[in-house]
């Protein structure tokens, strides 16, 4: 059951205005655009649908588990194991780096707004925590339940990349917003599934994946070093 103030925290964490460093990540969109895989709104819709069910689902699962554990006062050992389990489910080194970069930024920005004992224990266990884990702990500190935390993580998995597509391709932002809004039922399902798995042991959490996203992330990283890119991932 979500507590008082949870709604504001969920909205603020999912807001593009939240200063956690998310705006420099495209979630593979920049590389997909460069490779000609996304050229318009229709392609973007397919890409975001896939991203929500792979990266988004994984992030929702770990945000929900983190929110559940934070509410239950998990100790340092739990956070270390959760971190290792998310590493194990993220085969791309570039994606692990992108997740930790956003996690660190979110920790820094979130600590000023929603500090908690769980956040302090997480920071001690993992100074550069994964993004969805920090989201879950912050959401829990504000009284949100695992489902609320999963909604934030799943939404961010598509909202940031959709904004990157608008900037890179000059797509109609009204149409792109409609695409994101059109994923509402999918996102509800992803968040519900994640919340249902939140109490599992970290090793038993689901492990959805999308090799194409892993490959895009690695290609982006390689091309970034060769010729420069606008986004960090």
């Amino acid at each position, binding site marked *: 059951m979500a507590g008082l103030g949870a709604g504001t925290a969920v909205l603020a964490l999912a807001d593009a205005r939240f200063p956690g460093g998310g705006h420099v990540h495209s979630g593979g969109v920049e590389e997909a655009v460069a490779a000609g895989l996304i050229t318009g709104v229709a392609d973007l819709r397919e890409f975001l649908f896939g991203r929500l069910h792979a990266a988004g689902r994984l992030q929702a699962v770990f945000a929900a588990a983190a929110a559940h554990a934070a509410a239950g006062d998990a100790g340092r050992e739990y956070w270390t194991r959760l971190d290792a389990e998310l590493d194990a489910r993220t085969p791309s080194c570039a994606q692990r780096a992108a997740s930790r970069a956003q996690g660190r930024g979110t920790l820094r920005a979130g600590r000023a707004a929603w500090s908690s004992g769980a956040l302090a224990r997480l920071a001690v266990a993992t100074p*550069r925590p994964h993004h969805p884990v920090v989201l879950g702990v912050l959401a829990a500190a504000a009284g949100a339940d695992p489902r609320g935390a999963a909604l934030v993580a799943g939404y961010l998995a598509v909202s940031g990349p959709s904004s990157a597509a608008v900037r890179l391709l000059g797509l109609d932002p009204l149409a792109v917003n409609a695409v994101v809004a059109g994923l509402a039922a999918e996102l509800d399902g992803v968040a519900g599934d994640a919340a249902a798995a939140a109490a599992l042991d970290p090793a038993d959490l689901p492990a959805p994946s999308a090799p194409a996203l892993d490959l895009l992330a690695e290609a982006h990283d390689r091309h970034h070093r060769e010729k420069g890119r*606008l986004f960090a991932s």
Partner: protein
Amino acid sequence: MPPDSHGRDHGHGHGHRHPVSLDPAAPAEPDPHRGPPLPGRAFRLGIGGPVGSGKTALTAALCRALGRELRLAVVTNDIYTTEDADFLRRTGVLATDRIEAVQTGACPHTAIRDDITANLDAVERLEERHPGVELVIVESGGDNLTAVFSRGLVDSQIFVVDVAGGDKVPRKGGPGVTTADLLVINKVDLAERVGADMRVMVGDAHRMRGDLPVVAQSLVHTPDAPEVAAWVRGRLSARTPAGA
């Protein structure tokens, strides 16, 4: 101290609220703004301004002018990531490992103002790699007249415009021109060729900025930007308590 603290906690997590009076006749409250940064972390100087106004050239000039007396490092925010950083490396004004380039996700003003995370991370990487670094220059990507640095990222900021951009630029105002701690009018050697009236340009700049300083310069005439370097020295010594 938390591992990623960036040293900006000025003591407002201490459990009480500061009363705010909206009565203009009330006695002045203590200055609510942050004091000079604590010794122990580098002074952070932002350099912003429109595309092509000479931000990177000024950054390089400051590295030449101050590099022997200060431990320096630079963060660049270029559109395509490494253009400005590469320029600084090529000119040899700074060791390669003292330059960090950040990606701005196609929004340079967001990265220096609304969401400073990528830049804070870069500054902290430089501070970790070079303990004792005294001055970190954060050069923004070229942007518009409204792009200013967040006070959460830099301690002082310079806004750079240039004569070739038109002598009406200072008159147009915007937070960059009106609020930067120093306004630099660059490339004054080109004034005659582009038909810019320096008297008007400098006059407008002072009119828009009140008491805030303005420097008109040409890096062709004075490659080491002596007036700007002197201003930076003044800023740095103002933060160091006398006798420290």
